[in-house]
């Protein structure tokens, strides 16, 4: 685990009337306990990882309450877990990163929503959409809509979010329907506070198990129940949900003096919209808006009566709906026409972009365009235009002054990452073979597709890289290489990929990056993690799993030995052996390793023990600056500086103090026969008497020959 969550766990114990201060996603975690959940599961991924991390560290508290927590095998597993709420009054929650996690979970989600639930079922989805997103950009809204799962999108402040969690369970039970709570990435990480309530021990739990099974054919998706389930969703559950949402006033109306117009917005868009209004002088710091607002904390289902009430008598309404297709805008149009309300123009994706994140700038421009289009009385349009234009001018001016856009800085492998050397070797082998097709997966190793490696031709999903190579294998002139992380392997690569490839005797090469954790999501444990705590289960070896499946060609290689990795790749690519050839690239995540080793070394150092610190260096008078080494690495600590040689005008390559001494530079210099500039520097701290004696001896001899002091 990347860090300890002890302080956060303490916050989960806060009782009635106390104040919780912290991250949005942790507020959700606390709200789950306040809602009396019997079980929580999920699959890690930004931005919901911390929900899982904190609960994993909160075993004691969960035991006291009797709450079952589980880090599930994947999102489908997490969604299936909610099946416990179908027949029994058990409240449960599942969490994952969306939209990708929802994709994986969708089989279970369809079955769950079709059967319906008795106990409240809440799905907390972290939307990785917009700036910094590392996944495909799609809406989770469509899933909610097609499966009739109610979708909550609360205003992004902690009290609203917590309230929506609690109300979400009630809504779920009132309408026998699972509910999704959608939180954008910044809402998950927003730091705020709310007044806590006591945690509620669930009525039924590990401590008080259900004694009698419930059987009802109505809950099984076979004919005729599957037909009645669909009708039940529309005829019974939807009206119940609408009734509950209206009665509990989950959506919010904010009055304003500019009554000719109005804004209908997703709850999650509230703060950004208010900021744009503030910039135009149309709202005060506390959010008092001159334009009336109708805030949808529930974005599905919509409440026709509320929409018609808000829109009646208005000249125009702006719909602020992030993402596409424009489900809400279209629904509002349809609701108004059906109610025969034809006055207000419904404006949305005509002034706001159809696709992409609704940032402050996007809303500023969209709102200005809306006002200019609708000409409400009492708005100084010149002032509005001036604000909008000043931003545009600032951009133009910066572009003129800079003349060239600054270089982009995408994420990459950490310093000392054990996965980097594999791609160094792959790059070398690729040069010999003249181009290979590489099927990539999801994980830190996806960075191999970026500079300087540019290795990896497709990414089809988490753990799906081997399956994605299955049609490439027979249709490509060389063996296809597949890269998969150990996280992806356990997520679904084992069954979807490996089992099938072995069964069909596929002739491909699979590299499994065994770094021990799901590192890209924050180094959570997986079944093969090296130091798995007892409570999480007994470790399963990937190697024996593969052998058990019948993989015959299997080699393990230590990743930092670039020449060895290149050799095993060559062997795998040229062997006459048929069937899947698996290379386990073994190297523990450097983040985890340093986190573990640093305190130990610091203690040894303080105790006066002999500790060797290693880093690498480049002789700047030997380096000629061709940068072949950088193109085979991309390590942040391998960089450039002005040449100290007055005759060289171009920079030389250098290794900065960030180096952790992983050894890739030296090994790459060897494997690729680069240049003689690289050297390993070992600093012996607290040297022993023997060290000092030998050092003196060496220095004596070296001095005689005119060398070092």
């Amino acid at each position, binding site marked *: 685990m990347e860090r300890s969550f002890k302080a956060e766990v303490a916050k989960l114990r806060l009782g009635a009337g106390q104040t919780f201060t912290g991250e949005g996603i942790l507020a959700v975690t606390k709200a789950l306990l306040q809602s009396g959940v019997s079980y929580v599961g999920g699959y890690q991924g930004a931005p919901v990882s911390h929900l899982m991390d904190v609960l994993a560290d909160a075993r004691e508290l969960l035991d006291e309450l009797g709450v079952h927590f589980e880090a599930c095998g994947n999102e489908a597993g997490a969604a299936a877990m909610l099946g416990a709420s179908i027949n029994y009054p058990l409240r449960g929650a599942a969490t994952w990163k969306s939209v990708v996690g929802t994709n994986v979970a969708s089989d279970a989600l369809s079955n769950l929503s079709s059967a319906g639930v008795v106990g409240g079922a809440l799905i907390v989805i972290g939307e990785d959409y917009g*700036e*910094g997103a*590392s996944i495909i950009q799609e809406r989770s809204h469509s899933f909610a809509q097609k499966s009739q799962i109610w979708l909550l999108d609360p205003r992004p402040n902690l009290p609203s979010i917590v309230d929506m969690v609690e109300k979400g369970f009630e809504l779920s039970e009132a309408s026998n329907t699972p509910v999704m709570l959608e939180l954008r990435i*910044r809402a998950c*990480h*927003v*730091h705020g506070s709310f007044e806590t309530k006591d945690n509620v021990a669930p009525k039924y739990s590990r401590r008080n198990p259900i004694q009698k099974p419930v059987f009802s054919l109505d809950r099984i998706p076979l004919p005729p129940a599957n037909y009645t389930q669909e009708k039940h969703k529309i005829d019974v559950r939807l009206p119940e949900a609408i009734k509950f949402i209206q009665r509990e006033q989950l959506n919010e109306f904010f009055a304003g003096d500019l009554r000719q117009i109005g804004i209908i917005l997703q709850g999650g868009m509230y*703060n*950004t919209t208010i*900021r*744009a209004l503030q*910039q135009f002088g149309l*709202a005060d*710091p506390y*959010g008092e808006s001159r334009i009336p607002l109708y805030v949808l904390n529930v974005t599905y289902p919509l409440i026709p009566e509320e929409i018609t009430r808000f829109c009646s008598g208005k000249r125009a309404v702006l719909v602020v709906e992030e993402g596409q297709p424009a489900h809400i805008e279209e629904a509002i149009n349809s609701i108004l026409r059906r109610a025969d309300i034809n006055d207000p123009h419904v404006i949305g994706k005509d002034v706001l972009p159809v696709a992409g994140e609704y*940032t*402050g*700038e996007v809303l500023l421009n969209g709102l200005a365009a809306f006002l200019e289009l609708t000409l409400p009385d009492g708005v100084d349009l010149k002032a509005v235009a001036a604000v909008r234009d000043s*931003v545009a001018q*600032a*951009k133009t001016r910066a572009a003129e002054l800079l003349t060239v856009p*600054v*270089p982009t*800085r995408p*994420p*990459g492998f*950490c310093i000392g990452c054990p996965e980097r050397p594999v791609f160094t070797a792959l790059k070398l082998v*690729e040069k010999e073979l*003249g*181009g290979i097709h590489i099927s990539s997966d999801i994980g830190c190793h996806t960075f191999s597709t970026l*500079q300087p490696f540019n290795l990896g031709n497709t990414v089809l999903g988490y753990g799906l890289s081997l399956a994605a190579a299955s049609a490439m*294998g027979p249709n490509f*002139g060389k063996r296809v290489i597949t890269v998969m992380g150990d996280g992806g392997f356990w997520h679904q690569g084992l069954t979807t990929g490996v089992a099938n490839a072995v069964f069909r005797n596929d002739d491909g090469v699979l590299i499994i990056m065994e770094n021990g954790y799901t590192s890209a999501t924050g180094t959570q444990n997986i079944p093969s993690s090296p130091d798995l705590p007892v409570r999480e289960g007994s470790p399963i070896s990937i190697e024996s799993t593969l052998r058990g499946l019948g993989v015959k060609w299997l080699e393990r290689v230590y990743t930092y030995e670039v020449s060895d990795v290149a050799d095993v790749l060559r062997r795998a*690519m*040229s062997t*006459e052996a048929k069937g899947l050839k698996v290379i386990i690239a073994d190297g523990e995540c450097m983040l985890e390793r340093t986190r573990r080793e640093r305190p130990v070394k610091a203690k040894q150092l303080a105790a006066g023990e002999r500790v060797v*610190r290693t880093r690498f260096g480049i002789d700047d*008078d*030997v380096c000629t600056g061709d*940068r072949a080494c950088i193109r085979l690495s991309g390590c942040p600590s391998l*960089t*450039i500086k002005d040449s100290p*040689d*007055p*005759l060289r005008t171009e*920079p030389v390559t250098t290794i900065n103090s960030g180096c952790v001494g992983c050894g890739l*530079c030296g090994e790459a210099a060897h494997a690729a026969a680069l*240049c*003689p500039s*690289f*050297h*390993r*520097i*070992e*600093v*012996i701290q607290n040297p022993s008497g023997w060290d*000092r004696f030998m050092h003196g001896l060496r220095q004596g001899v070296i001095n005689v*020959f005119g060398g*070092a*002091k």
Partner: protein
Amino acid sequence: MTRTYTILVAALGGEGGGVLADWLIEAAQHEGFPAQKTSIPGVSQRTGATTYYVEMYPEKGARPPVMALIPSPGAIDLMAASELVEAGRAMQNAFITPERTTLVASTHRIYATSEKMLPTDGRYDVQKILEAAPQVAQKAVLFDMSRLAQEAGTVINAVLFGAMAGSGALPLSREACEAAIRGAGKGADASLRGFASGYAQAASTPLGKGGGERSEPGDLTAAEKSPPTPLLQRGETAPHSPLYQRGAEGGFLQREEQSDRVRREFPAPLHELLDEAVARLADYQDAAYAASYLDRIRGVFAVDREAGGEAGGWRLTQEAARLLALWMSYEDTIRVADLKTRASRFARVRKEAAAKEGQIVVVTDYLKPSANEFADILPPSWAARLRRNAGTGRAVKLRTSDISGFLAMRLMSAMKPLRRRSSRFIEEQALIERWLGAIKRLGFAALDADLSLEIVLCAKLVRGYGETWRKSRAAFVNILDTLVENEQAVARGADALKIAIRKAREASLTYEEVKPSAATAKGKPVIWMKQG
């Protein structure tokens, strides 16, 4: 009515931007201000560029206002950047506006992969950012925070926090900021030191006012991109100096003679550079070798003079002198062994590794000499035989700080007197003469300084080691063969030739990419076992 105060922090993964945001929140709470922060963690934390956004309402005990989770262009009060290009990115996104933004940024550079992977100088021209800063911001405070962080033994976030507070823009007292750092516990003392030095520097940095007056671009260190400093000032760190001062081959007397000759035969703007080159070559081989260098440069200088090069500051001679000196001191194993066993090298390594007094430093060199490298230093007839069976070389990890490793290297460097008879020496001298011959021949014929310069600059290609060197050198020879010495190409006129040479040279200076999906590896004896 009070306005919400907005702070955007741009940082790179691992620089402690998250901790800085925490400090800001703590300090705001200390002051009794409502405050909020957001970030976009996830993979952007893995070394990429990322931002942290903080809002606070600077009114003691106020009820929390509606605070935004996402920064809006034109609505940022304080823009902090832990690196200079990140400040440029903030400008580009209009997060710095003259009406309200104070920019606090470090001037040091952390290069993006795209900047550092090119075989040439791909660095972004940060001068543009330094010049733009005082024009686009209301106030700009720029200085090298990385250096201050190192001096204080802390991370850059502490210095940046100090600079934000010291800029006077932050609505938080110094006490509140320091209390926030202290409250965070771990490493607080070092952070407070960093904070103090950042605070002091920012408080004493003259501020640029928006839209005119320029602020000082801070103290750019020599390690950053800057116009080349005068040669002589840098000479003290030049690799040749220590040996040379010991009076090894060459000696002071000869050096003075050479220096006199430089002054007699060349105009003043060239003296510094030629002195440097002469010293290097005397150190590399001997005084006679350095003298032959001056003979060669005279030829180029004659072309330059004929073409009226004085007006351009003798650029042709300057470039030729620089590149020829580098070429003539090409890095064979003798040279590498020599450089790696100098006392100055061990001192440099100790310094780089930040080894403290009493700590022992062990240096292990990663070498991969192949038969080719040995052939280079053997006479031509032996070399040919050896090259025929040259493999990819043997990976050697040589402990140069050990007696045996050091002596092995020293022995290699002692072969310097034999270099003149080595195969590579003979080959390089021949190619140099070919190059110089072409510069002179075409130079006098066309009297076009630009054309001569293009040919001169081709010598950039002759560098590197092993395979990289062989490929690059082949590209150089190819330019001579197909353009410079090709009658048809020359007949097309100086202008066409110039462009053709530049294009060919630049093409060779981009790095090689493997063409994806070549159906089979042509000419490679790899057996492909297909299914079925």
